[in-house]
């Protein structure tokens, strides 16, 4: 460390610095806004204003260590910064070039301090395409986005590509929907393009509802511009003149930044009439959800935008034929749209070189639960779970052992240690009984009861079921009742088979994706942790010691 500090000094003061202060929801909750204000004040007092710039950014991804700040160009990463640390940062580092060791990230294994952002294992093993600007740019300043090459993709598209060419490029890239189902994006756009209608709509699905997932929130808070740019390109490709971004109301900061980004984009002529002096006009409206998980389902989401109860409807007709107000509509997830600009600037071939045969590009995960480093991570498709959990996530803390990884939220499943070497892509996860989902990755350790987790998820889906169809409305209630019985020592012989039978009936019988996947957490935990169910039912014992009535 002394060597490094010396290195910094040798470069010779006065140096110009940019301090990137994370202003994501996580860091703001630990007062990063006050830290930034204090830092600015300190810099003025020390007379450093001409050579130190303080910049708000979105989420750095490493929320658990928040508040975080990065000092560029040194690339020094400070974690868990408090207001009282500010004078020292200003005087020692910014003025004097001294690194403050105690604020550096400490490797949980070796206990060694790591000074550079890029050397921290959490970041080192990541490949950030979708989140390339998150934590780097000021999410409330379009100029910052433009300085990183932002809106170049839209310029290229509007100046020299037909909608068909855009769709062809996206098809060649192999991009698949990042909302969870993994439908090829180019093909989806083509369906909507092929529907003849005077008015078409595009919708950005930002109703990130999976508990334990906050990828979309991080991107909206960190780089709302890339979403808007991708959205505008999608509109051009399918021929839509109006778009809606449907954001859940629980994300006030994301909504605020999207609104600012939209206003700036409009002022710069990236949204509105005759975008970049072309014939293409497109406007965007931001719609806030009101607390309904089911509105992540496309037809429910459209009903909600229309001001109705968010109840899904049967398909056909598909949204691409008859969607919002009966018009052809294309719906894409935040991460799908955020992938578009980078694909079009760097090319489909480059993009398709990342990932696996059938799953291209990168996947963003919200890594949480019993994990040393929790936060947002982006890795190439096909990366093994082990790499994400151990190399990036630093493994399970507290000397406990790994028990399961939960992917896909309430629609997904819990995978045991046998699957640690599973490459993370759409097909592999489905084959293992879980799903890719939108990116929630919750790690569970030996102190987690798998029956309790199944009960937790069924309680969630039961609460979020819209109530329209019987299998989901009453079936999830029954599954929950049975699981409650098991976790309170009232389980009966035959309950496991009953859960499996009922789960399968709900899967085949339900109207929408919510019901069709709701039994998954219970079914996979039975598949991989059946002995825990047996212990609860037969021996009235909770092996993890979680279920109070059985302890």
């Amino acid at each position, binding site marked *: 460390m002394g060597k490094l500090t010396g290195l910094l000094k040798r470069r010779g003061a006065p140096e110009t610095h940019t301090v990137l202060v994370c202003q994501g929801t996580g860091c703001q909750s630990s007062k990063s806004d006050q830290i930034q204000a204090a830092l600015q004040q300190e810099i003025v007092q020390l007379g450093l204003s001409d050579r130190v710039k303080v910049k708000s950014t979105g989420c750095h991804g490493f929320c658990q260590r928040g508040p975080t700040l990065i000092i560029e160009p040194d690339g020094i990463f400070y974690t868990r910064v408090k207001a009282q640390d500010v004078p020292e940062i200003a005087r020692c580092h910014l003025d004097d070039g001294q690194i403050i060791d105690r604020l550096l990230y400490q490797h949980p294994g070796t206990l060694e301090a790591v000074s550079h952002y890029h050397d921290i294992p959490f970041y080192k093993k990541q490949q950030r395409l979708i989140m390339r600007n998150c934590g780097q740019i000021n999410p409330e300043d379009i100029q910052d986005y433009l300085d990183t090459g932002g809106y170049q993709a839209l310029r290229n598209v509007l100046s020299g590509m037909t909608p068909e060419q855009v769709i062809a490029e996206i098809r060649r890239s192999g991009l698949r929907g990042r909302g969870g189902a993994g439908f090829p994006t180019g093909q989806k756009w083509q369906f909507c393009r092929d529907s003849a209608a005077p008015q078409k709509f595009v919708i950005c699905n930002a109703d990130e509802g999976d508990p334990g997932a906050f990828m979309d929130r991080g991107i909206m808070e960190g780089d709302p511009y890339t979403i808007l740019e991708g959205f505008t390109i999608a509109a051009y490709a399918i021929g839509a003149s109006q778009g809606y971004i449907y954001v859940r109301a629980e994300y006030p900061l994301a909504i605020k930044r999207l609104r600012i980004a939209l206003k700036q984009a409009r002022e710069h002529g990236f949204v509105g009439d005759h975008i970049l002096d072309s014939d293409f006009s497109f406007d965007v409206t931001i719609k806030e959800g009101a607390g309904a998980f089911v509105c992540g389902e496309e037809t429910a989401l459209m009903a909600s935008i229309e001001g109705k109860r968010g109840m899904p409807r049967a398909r056909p007709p598909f949204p691409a034929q008859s969607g919002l107000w009966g018009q052809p509509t294309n719906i894409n997830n935040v991460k799908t749209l955020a992938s578009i600009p980078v694909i079009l600037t760097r090319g489909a071939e480059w993009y398709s070189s990342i990932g696996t045969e059938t799953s291209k590009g990168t996947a963003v995960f919200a890594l949480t639960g019993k994990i040393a480093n929790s936060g947002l991570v982006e890795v190439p498709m096909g990366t093994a779970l082990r790499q994400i959990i151990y190399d990036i996530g630093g493994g399970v803390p507290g000397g406990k052992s790994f028990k399961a990884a939960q992917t896909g939220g309430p629609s997904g499943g819990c995978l045991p240690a046998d699957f640690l070497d599973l490459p993370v892509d759409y097909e592999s996860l489905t084959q293992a009984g879980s799903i890719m989902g939108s990116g929630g990755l919750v790690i569970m350790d030996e102190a987690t009861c798998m029956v309790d987790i199944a009960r937790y998820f069924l309680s969630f889906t039961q609460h979020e079921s819209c109530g329209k169809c019987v299998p989901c409305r009453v079936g999830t209630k029954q599954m929950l009742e049975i699981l409650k019985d098991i976790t309170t020592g009232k389980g009966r012989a035959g309950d496991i088979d009953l859960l499996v039978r009922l789960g399968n*009936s709900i899967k085949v019988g339900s109207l929408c994706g919510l019901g069709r996947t709701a039994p998954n957490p219970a079914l996979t935990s039975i598949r991989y942790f059946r002995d825990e169910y047996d212990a609860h039912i037969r021996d009235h014992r909770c092996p993890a010691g979680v279920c109070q009535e059985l302890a």
Partner: protein
Amino acid sequence: MDAITLTIDGAAVTVRRGATVLEAAQQAGIYIPTLCSDHDLEPYGGCRLCIVEIEKMAGLPTACTTPATSGMVVRTATPAVNEARRDIVALLLADYPDDCPACTGDDRCDFHQVVAYLGLDEQPFRRLHRSIPIDSSNPFFERDLDYCIACGKCVRTCDEVVNVDAIEMASRGYTILPSAFGGKPIVQSNCISCGECVVRCPTAALMPKERRLPAQEVKTTCPYCGVGCQIYLGVSDGQVISVRGDRDNDVNRGLLCVKGRFGVAGYVNHPERLTLPLVRKDGALRETTWDEALEMVAGRLAGFGKGEVAVISSAKCTNEDNYVIQKFARTVLGTNNIDHCARL
């Protein structure tokens, strides 16, 4: 007719283009259980009982929401389909009260019919109980939501058929139920008591207060106004006890208003209803025969000039009756002084 042909359970069925698989099956006389569909309502896909297997389609699509296409091959009662259906019905029965007032043993109740068709022989699920107060605020029907299966038929009827929108589904998930604004009693809503929801309710959640079943039915025209709605009067022991609309005529296609549905029996059976003509003799009204009454009227009318008489007819008569009386007034009595009671 633009028609298509598909195969249902091995039989070739030809239907109009645009028909659903359920409509095609019904046309061919093939029974597919359903609790949320109705030929007056848009497909809903809520009860999931009409799931079928269709070749080249994934999963078990619902017949009510799937358009029939040419060459489609449908199987309506495979083991997989019926297994899922039995679980669905068992789920509904798990929180359905044991004592059902609608259970008359006949097939009037859709739910009863579905259970009988599927032959449920076990209840594998946990018994759940609901306890929602009965709403008897409406003078003509009661709502007991313990029997509600949330099929949404009442709500959709009020919206799509009657266009009154007195009720809507409220809450969500397991607690979803039809409700008037603010969860208030129905009588405090803009409900017009037409009873169309009561007719369509597949369970005992909406029941007319008059629950007797008629011994026989008589087809007639509703006596309340000139529209001419066709009805079946249900009769028992010489008394009218029920009314139902006739779906097979073009005047009302089975629809009725509050008067036709709930008002006929009341006045037909009312003790003060006039069933014989009255004449005033010595200052008092007394019953007489039609011959005597008509003779008296004819005799008196003969004593007046054309402009001296007026004819008042009744809005409760049929259009045809009113036509005849105006014809009589104009051509026989020679007067244009004719009106009817609805304007008085």
